[in-house]
């Protein structure tokens, strides 16, 4: 039987905020699943706490709950919605864990909800190390020798058989969280203790080390009739020992003969059958001994995963969509292959290109963290590239990584040939320790004369990959040796392009310009052609316009008229009118801190808006995790690096009528000027206006013209200038490099020592661009505003009041819509200032403005006034609010999806329509939305992955994702946002309070209220004295330097339920830094600002008064 008619309503659980190990891929899979189930006529109920997702758009599911992902909250949703079934396998590990909790607590049984796709026993069998091992043994497959233990004693006993080095893996954690390799007994003990702690069931697996083996992944699908197919085989470039999420990976497998591949295939089929995943996709990881071929099963994920998203993009086979349909009864052969139309989904994709994925790291944000790559995932994003050969896809992926490289070196960004050129010792060291830079050291090793075999010995990277890298370097040297740009033969130029060399690399090697190379190429007819990703290696005609560039002979993009016919055929059914225009949207590239899913959300909406208007939409992006790179999202999809060269190549073929650069974050904006100069029609806000907002001097003139105020500031190009400017404006100052997103190297300096240190760091990061110096407005409230302007009219959908004070990066701060403490007139003034700025800049599309509001003495409104700590409402009475403009960004901001979810206004779509000439009035959007409830956005941080890093918030953004809490009351909305962010506000227990001098007075009130609520307070000497003075009793705990037992002991023993610690100093080596880091490792929530602590106390009070309730977005916006 195909479709199950006994089911009507299906519950999906999303994966929550973007964190390391769980990124946009689950928005992609969840969105596909929602679409697929709705297509089949089911009512879909979705729960996810992450507002920056397409899946939580009110139009994606019928019933959308942006609520914390805890089983208690989901149980409430189930109680309200009474779904027939729960599909647990599409929301990553988070979704799976919540589903398992619902089973454990009898919720599914109570409400008669059936688990489809994989049941609880299957999930447990796949995830429990012991059961999995037994299952593998029963089908005769080898697993790594290992033992599951629950105590340190048992662990110690186990290494007598297993030996060192050994891998320690905590059970039931995500992204391999907490897995590490122990080389000696001391390390082993530490890792076991930490692992037991991290594991929700206090269990770790001790395993033989198979470091250096080859690693493979198989993406498998199974239907209810036991038909099983392999979608994709992925080979890891980095051998075992590096988490697959942190490895460079390649599809398909490159170095397996058919005999070995089929054996792995047989094993995959046997595994999915034995574990019993009834329907859907699974990911199975294998390791093989390169010397003997001995094969070991590493693990299995009984759900869609990051790798399945990659496999979907790599092959064109939509795993999540098909998995959803299989879960409701269809069999593989009953589902069509969208791409070929004539064939079914029951086949194994075969590809005729090579796919390379390269992870993107963010260690620059965590300088104290160890950047060695281990079995615990640390990357924050990834880029994927497709080429005809590995060489081409590898070089494309390197430039798609957006780390300033344009291929495998020789692009002006590497150390070779500079004074920092590494010597052999350094190269050897870098090669033997996997780290993000290792890929560049492979090149240095080749240039230093290391042989492929020598490099293999140091890295265990397969010789096949290494020889390909060698070939790239050989080509580079041939070009260098040709005698100059004029001497370069067309044959060699073509060879280089076919090996993935960018124009930039060629220009650098031959001392000419990128444009010169491009011009010569075009003249010689050496142009990129575009080929389809079609699942079948061209055996059947492809209907899905999903393309990659390569330097071959035949281009496959149909002419515009033909494309329009195809679109016409599709559209007639929808009764939509068609337009002849083609609009290209440039995406955001790989996720990184500061630029993530929010921008992908915006790009998708731009595309949806174009399709709605009947305009041909063209998406360009290189991030395989995203919804934007789903072939369903746009009329044409180009999976390409976001560089000027690659985008121009597409423009040459597609001839867009407009290109949207303001939705994909900084990546496309950085290309805007060069694209415009090359004649590409950039639509929306002009490049000049963008530059006017980014250029300090022009911006100052603009504010003066409009009568708006900004903190005193200056631009420094040298250290000397920086000193002079600081002398003029006075401490504290805020230092940052220009043209950098996410607050990279942004610091607040209170004295000369800090000035010297941070300004020189900022110059390094700025790479030749100047450093900006602002007077830092201590104690000010920051406000983020998102506005849409059509050049004439302005709508302001979102005014967000930050909870943390100015100085914390806006991306890291929690914020609320509507403002929860600012007086109405201030909000109105901010709104008016926003509108003025938008009109003056002639913004067409989106604009984001950051304001700061500071309460200043009425009679002394001069900015030089003396700093007063804190800005409590009580103190405000005698002062007046002063509004400062901090920053204007005429582009989509990180907060656009949050604003859309908080107000119900599809902000990004409206802005995109404005950009193609549909005015706000024509769209019927004339008034600012008035939110009917309070929405709080909270940020989520990756500190748990970076042991020992201080978690204090600052001007440099470090969060990876966000969650949202919604309620009619601010306090409850804040409580929900904390719960969703994994910061569990305790109902009882000990609260440790330690505040810097500046916050001592405000803490008294909070401590008093906490005492009334019945919490016990812990404090160190100074704070305890202040509390005592106010008549509040607390238990004194020792500072770390005062010996034991100190706070860290209390934390480790689980005696602390909450830490409120505001910094007086910063850094992992300070006492308080260690306390904060220990709290993170102990899983104890830690609040580091007075503002957050204040909001938290309000929330704890409110939670006594009312229980947390759930309401769907559809109901919230119904009135």
């Amino acid at each position, binding site marked *: 039987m195909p479709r199950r008619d006994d089911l009507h309503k299906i519950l999906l659980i999303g994966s929550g905020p973007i964190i390391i190990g769980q990124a946009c891929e689950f928005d992609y899979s969840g969105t596909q699943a929602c679409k697929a189930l709705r297509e089949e006529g089911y009512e879909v109920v979705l729960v996810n706490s992450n507002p920056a997702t397409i899946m939580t758009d009110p139009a994606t599911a019928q019933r959308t709950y942006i609520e914390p992902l805890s089983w208690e909250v989901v149980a409430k949703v189930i109680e309200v919605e009474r779904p027939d079934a729960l599909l647990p396998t599409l929301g990553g590990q988070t979704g799976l864990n919540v589903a398992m909790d619902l089973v454990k607590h009898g919720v599914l049984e109570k409400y008669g909800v059936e688990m489809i796709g994989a049941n609880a026993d299957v999930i447990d069998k796949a995830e429990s190390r012991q059961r999995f091992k037994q299952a593998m043994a029963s089908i005769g497959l080898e697993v790594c020798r290992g033992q599951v233990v629950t105590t340190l004693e048992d662990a110690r006993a186990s290494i007598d058989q297993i030996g060192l080095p050994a891998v320690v893996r905590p059970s039931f954690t995500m992204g391999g969280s907490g897995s590490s390799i122990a080389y000696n007994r001391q390390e082993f003990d530490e890792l076991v203790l930490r692992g037991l702690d991290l594991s929700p069931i206090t269990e770790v697996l001790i395993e033989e080390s198979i470091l250096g083996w080859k690693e493979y992944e198989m993406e498998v699908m199974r239907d209810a009739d036991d038909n099983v197919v392999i979608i994709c085989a992925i080979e890891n470039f980095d051998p075992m020992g590096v988490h697959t999420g942190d490895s460079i990976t390649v599809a398909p497998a*490159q170095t397996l*003969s058919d005999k070995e591949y089929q*054996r792995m*295939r*047989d094993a995959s089929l046997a595994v999915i059958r034995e574990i019993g995943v009834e329907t859907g996709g699974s990911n199975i990881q294998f390791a093989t001994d390169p010397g003997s*071929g001995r094969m070991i099963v590493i693990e299995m994920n009984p759900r869609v995963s990051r790798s399945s998203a990659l496999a979907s993009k790599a092959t064109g086979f939509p795993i999540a969509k098909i998995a959803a349909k299989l879960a409701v009864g269809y069999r593989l052969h009953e589902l069509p292959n969208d791409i070929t139309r004539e064939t079914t989904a029951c086949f194994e994709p075969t590809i005729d290109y090579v796919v390379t994925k390269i992870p993107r790291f963010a260690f620059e944000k965590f300088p104290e963290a160890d950047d060695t790559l281990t079995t615990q995932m640390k990357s924050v994003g990834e880029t994927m590239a497709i080429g005809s050969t590995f060489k081409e896809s590898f070089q494309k992926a390197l430039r798609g990584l957006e780390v300033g490289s344009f291929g495998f070196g020789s692009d002006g960004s590497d150390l070779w040939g500079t004074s920092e050129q590494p010597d052999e010792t350094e190269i050897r060291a870098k090669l033997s320790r996997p780290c993000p830079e290792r890929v560049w050291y492979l090149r240095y090793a080749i240039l230093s004369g290391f042989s492929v075999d020598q490099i293999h010995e140091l890295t265990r990277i397969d010789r096949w990959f290494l020889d390909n890298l060698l070939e790239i370097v050989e080509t580079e040297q041939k070009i260098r040796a040709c005698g100059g740009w004029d001497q370069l033969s067309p044959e060699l130029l073509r060879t280089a392009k076919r090996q993935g060399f960018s124009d930039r690399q060629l220009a650098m090697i031959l001392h000419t310009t990128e444009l010169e190379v491009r011009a010569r190429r075009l003249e010689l007819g050496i142009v990129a052609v575009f080929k389809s990703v079609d699942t079948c290696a061209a055996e*059947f005609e492809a209907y899905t316009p999903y393309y990659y560039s390569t330097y071959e002979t035949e281009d496959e993009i149909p002419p515009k008229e033909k494309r329009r016919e195809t679109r016409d055929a599709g559209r007639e059914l929808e009764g939509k009118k068609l337009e002849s225009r083609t609009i290209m949207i440039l995406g955001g590239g790989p996720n990184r801190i500061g630029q993530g899913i929010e921008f992908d959300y915006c790009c998708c909406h731009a595309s949806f808006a174009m399709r709605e208007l009947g305009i041909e939409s063209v998406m360009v992006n290189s991030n395989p995790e995203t919804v934007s790179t789903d072939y369903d999202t746009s009329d044409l999809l180009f999976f390409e690096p976001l560089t000027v060269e690659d985008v121009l190549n597409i423009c040459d073929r597609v001839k867009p009528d407009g290109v949207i650069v303001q939705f994909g974050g900084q990546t496309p904006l950085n290309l805007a000027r060069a694209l415009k100069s090359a004649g590409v029609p950039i639509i929306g806000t002009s490049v000049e206006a963008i530059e006017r907002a980014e250029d300090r001097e022009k911006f100052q003139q603009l504010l003066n013209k409009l009568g708006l105020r900004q903190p005193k500031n200056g631009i420094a190009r040298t250290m000397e200038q920086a000193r002079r400017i600081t002398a003029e404006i006075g401490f504290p100052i805020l230092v940052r490099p220009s043209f950098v997103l996410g607050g990279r190297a942004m610091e607040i300096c209170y004295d000369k020592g800090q000035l010297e240190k941070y300004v020189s760091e900022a110059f390094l990061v700025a790479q030749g661009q100047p450093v900006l110096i602002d007077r830092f407005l201590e104690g000010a409230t920051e406000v983020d505003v998102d506005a849409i302007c059509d050049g004439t009219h302005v709508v302001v959908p979102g005014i967000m009041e930050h909870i943390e004070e100015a100085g914390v990066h806006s991306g890291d701060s929690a914020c609320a819509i509507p403002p929860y403490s600012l007086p109405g007139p201030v909000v109105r003034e901010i709104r008016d200032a926003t509108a003025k700025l938008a009109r003056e800049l002639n913004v067409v599309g989106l604009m984001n403005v950051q304001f700061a509001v500071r309460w200043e003495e009425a009679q002394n409104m001069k900015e030089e006034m003396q700093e007063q700590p804190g800005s409590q409402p009580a103190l405000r009475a005698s002062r007046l609010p002063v509004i400062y403009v901090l920053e204007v960004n005429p582009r989509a901001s990180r907060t656009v999806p949050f604003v859309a979810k908080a107000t119900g206004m599809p902000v990004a779509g409206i802005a995109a329509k404005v950009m193609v000439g549909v005015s706000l009035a024509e769209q019927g959007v004339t008034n600012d939305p008035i939110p009917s409830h309070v929405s709080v956005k909270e940020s989520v941080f990756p500190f748990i992955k970076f042991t020992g890093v201080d978690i204090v918030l600052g001007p440099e953004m470090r969060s990876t994702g966000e969650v949202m809490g919604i309620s009619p009351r601010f306090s409850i909305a804040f409580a929900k946002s904390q719960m969703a962010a994994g910061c569990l506000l305790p109902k009882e227990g000990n609260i440790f309070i330690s505040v810097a001098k500046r916050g001592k007075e405000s803490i008294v009130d909070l401590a008093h209220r906490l005492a009334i609520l019945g919490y016990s307070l812990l404090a160190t000497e100074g704070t305890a004295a202040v509390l005592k003075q106010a008549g509040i009793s607390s238990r004194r705990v020792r500072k770390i330097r005062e010996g034991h037992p100190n706070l860290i002991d209390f934390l480790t023993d689980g005696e602390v339920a909450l830490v409120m610690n505001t910094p007086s100093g910063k850094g992992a080596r300070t006492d308080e830094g260690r306390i904060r880091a220990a709290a993170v490792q102990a899983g104890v929530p830690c609040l580091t600002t007075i503002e957050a602590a204040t909001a938290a106390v309000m929330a704890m009070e409110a939670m006594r008064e009312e229980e947390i309730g759930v309401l769907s977005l559809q109901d919230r916006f119904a009135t």
Partner: protein
Amino acid sequence: MTQPAKLALEDGTVYTGISIGATGEVDGEVCFNTSMTGYQEILTDPSYRGQIVTMTYPQIGNYGVNDQDLESSRPHLAGFIIREHSRVASNFRSSGLLSDYLEQWGVVAIESIDTRALVKHIRTLGALRGVLSTTDLDDASLVAKAQASPGLVGRDLVQEVVPEQPCHWEEPLSEWTYLNSECGMRNAELKKGASGKRFLTPFSPHVVALDYGMKWNIPRHLADMGCEVTILPGTATAEDVLAQQPNGVFLSNGPGDPEPLAYAIETLRDLLGKQPIFGICLGHQLLSLACGAKTFKMKFGHRGANQPVQNLADQSVEITSQNHGFAVLEENLPDALEVTHRNLNDQTIEGVRHRELPAFSVQYHPEASAGPHDSHYLFQQFYESMR
């Protein structure tokens, strides 16, 4: 130094690339195979006689060549076309580079052409005659030669690949065919002895395999199951076969067009009903022809390791290895034959069974190599039919 090579097609299209095999010139029908692994098995598959094979996967030669993954003693195809040859062979079983192997066996091969464009061309126009040359690089001359190439239709290519004399086959499947010592083939009667070696069950039927260009993995399967295997050339008569007193007759794969093979069809007519018969690929076509069916030349055939085939008995789907340019015609299929398997992509016949007599056959390759192992059960079915 690189040596140029050219591929010319009968429609006038010429591709210029680099020679990676022997020098020389060959002609044949240009086809493509979509397997991503298994080039050595493909090279040595005698069914490719008369064909110039294009690999759709661009990186070929990565794991080199070895002495085990052979489907016959030498390459049989006319020529080989790939996008990029690997300079290194990276695999613990490898004994050498693919290019050296090609050169050693005189296979003319070309790399560095836009293989996807070529495949799309074939897909659109159907299989085309072509010439691959490293000696003549004149386009017009090459195109003329391509047009003069005889093609496959009506030709008896089997004669060129049949063994000269009968022989016995004993080699079992490679250890690489088994996932582990316990499972692999679904043969319940294969058990492990005390020594850990597999031993044969008492039932050891004698199978005569008619070799029309048989892939070695077929007799390996039969031997592995415990069959006594005698290989006779495909030109053998029914008397020759029956003289062996077989318990069953196997009909192998082989190259080209089945229709001109009147002698083989004749033999099968005489054998039908005498003993259980199992045919694969060309064997399937010959069995069907012997039962009164017709065959036809497909536009560009099925060649790859990802072809989905549905077993009509229980609707289950097998992912199969295939290599055929001719197929059994749906129309006028004799009543005696029942269709047992169909290709899910184009619904063509993939398997038949005689309604009254013990004879069945499949168009695809249950012996895999290269390709998935989903269809091993057919050997078991044959084995059981001989009891």
